């Protein structure tokens, strides 16, 4: 029972480490995502800078 939890945590860490490199191209692409959306909001007068 004591070893169950660390074993599960180890599995999670392994899955996390294996998954991350696969997602790097997506990370780079998504970092450019917010800018056009913000400009789209700006055109409609609902951008973040309109908030108090």
């Amino acid at each position: 029972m004591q070893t169950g939890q660390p074993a599960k945590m180890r599995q999670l860490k392994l899955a996390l480490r294996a998954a991350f490199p696969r997602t790097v191209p997506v990370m780079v692409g998504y970092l450019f995502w917010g800018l056009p959306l913000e400009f789209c909001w700006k055109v409609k007068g609902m951008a973040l800078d309109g908030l108090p």
Partner: protein
Amino acid sequence: MSIFIYAGSMQFVAVDLLATGAGFLQVILMTLMVNIRHVFYGISMLGKFRNLGAKKPYMIFSLTDETFSLLCTAEPPKNVDRNWFFFFIALFNQLYWIVGSVVGGLLGSSFSFNTQGIDFAMTALFVVIFVNQWREAKSHVPALVGLVCSLVCLLLFGADNFILPALIGMVVLLSVFRGRLDRPEEGAAT
């Protein structure tokens, strides 16, 4: 917005819908039309999502174009739990999405510049994913079927209307030739 609406094209459409005060039914129909390609994504993920347990609803919610592309070919290393591996791919992608939206929102509100061509970032992203899949795939036939269907439908229906017919074409062709595609070794041996 990016936390609750996890669909890029729909977020751009939502700007117009909110600005014009569109009705609930109109929003539902528009969302269905814009994202109907996800029906095809969902069908092809039925097998992979079968034993996901409590993670299944989140995996269905987080199935975007990019996540779908990765889940199609990504195979976990031997000692890694398959379900958690898929879950973290989807989770990482959604986190990038939210962070990208926040960072872009903050940067975009603090300065302005000519954004012409910035949409190419997403095209470049798909090219990178495609190249990775091409290098890892044992058979290039499905990729070639996808390319040919897309090009033919692009020529026939134009840039604004080609995705849905192309997806239907791919599903039909891959279903018809499924028997051969499932036995590449046998085909190569004979």
